[in-house]
């Protein structure tokens, strides 16, 4: 049986424009496709990835236009039908003034104090 792995994503908008992806959300998709058993926990600023309506379109340098801007909320949402649980630290959401109605559907809010117990349910916990 595959090891259960929790990807904790905290760094946000690090290189998302030139990568056209969040590198760890992307990696999660790729690893899932390779058979990994994964969950995702967004904490810190990365909780913003679950906010609907992010728009990074329109970037250009001289005549060179970006045609595939990152769509982080969609990329996150696409993990759900693949069986990847997506969780957000509740306090990190509310401290940043994000209303739950602003979040994409299907994500689960977890209390910061519950993280030790949450981590106990995984074989490996990777901090990204």
């Amino acid at each position, binding site marked *: 049986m595959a090891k259960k792995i929790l990807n904790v994503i905290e760094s946000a908008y690090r290189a998302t424009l030139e990568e056209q992806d969040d590198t760890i959300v992307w990696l999660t998709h790729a690893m899932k496709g390779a058979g990994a058993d994964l969950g995702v926990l967004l904490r*810190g600023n990365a909780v913003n990835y679950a906010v609907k309506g992010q728009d990074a379109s329109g970037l250009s340098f001289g005549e060179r236009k970006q045609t595939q801007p990152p769509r982080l909320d969609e990329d996150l949402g696409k993990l759900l039908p693949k069986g990847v649980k997506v969780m957000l630290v509740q306090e990190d959401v509310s401290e940043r003034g994000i209303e739950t109605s602003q979040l994409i559907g299907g994500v689960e809010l977890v209390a910061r104090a519950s*993280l*030790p117990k949450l*981590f*106990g349910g995984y074989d490996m916990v990777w*901090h990204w």
Partner: protein
Amino acid sequence: MAKYLLIESRDPFESNDVPYFYELASGLAREGNEVTLFLAQNGVLAARGTKAAALKAVADAGVQILADDFSLRERAIGGGLPAGVKASPLDVVIDQLAEGRKALWH
């Protein structure tokens, strides 16, 4: 219960996210897990000055706190580490990885 190795490479003077990691270590210990908090790189700066009290609180929660001896020497942090913090060779990280501890780097 499980065993954990938490490696803190950031220092609380520069990063306001360090308290999250200290609290995670304490919380895991309070849940009955065996926890080592290994300070490395600028993470050892917490062992000197006004942030040392925060480390004491983590030690009081039952966490073993070790500080990379190379990182300490590199920053001229000599004797007089706060109570509950011990200098340690980096080998301990390999020991604990080999032991199978859940390992997190911050």
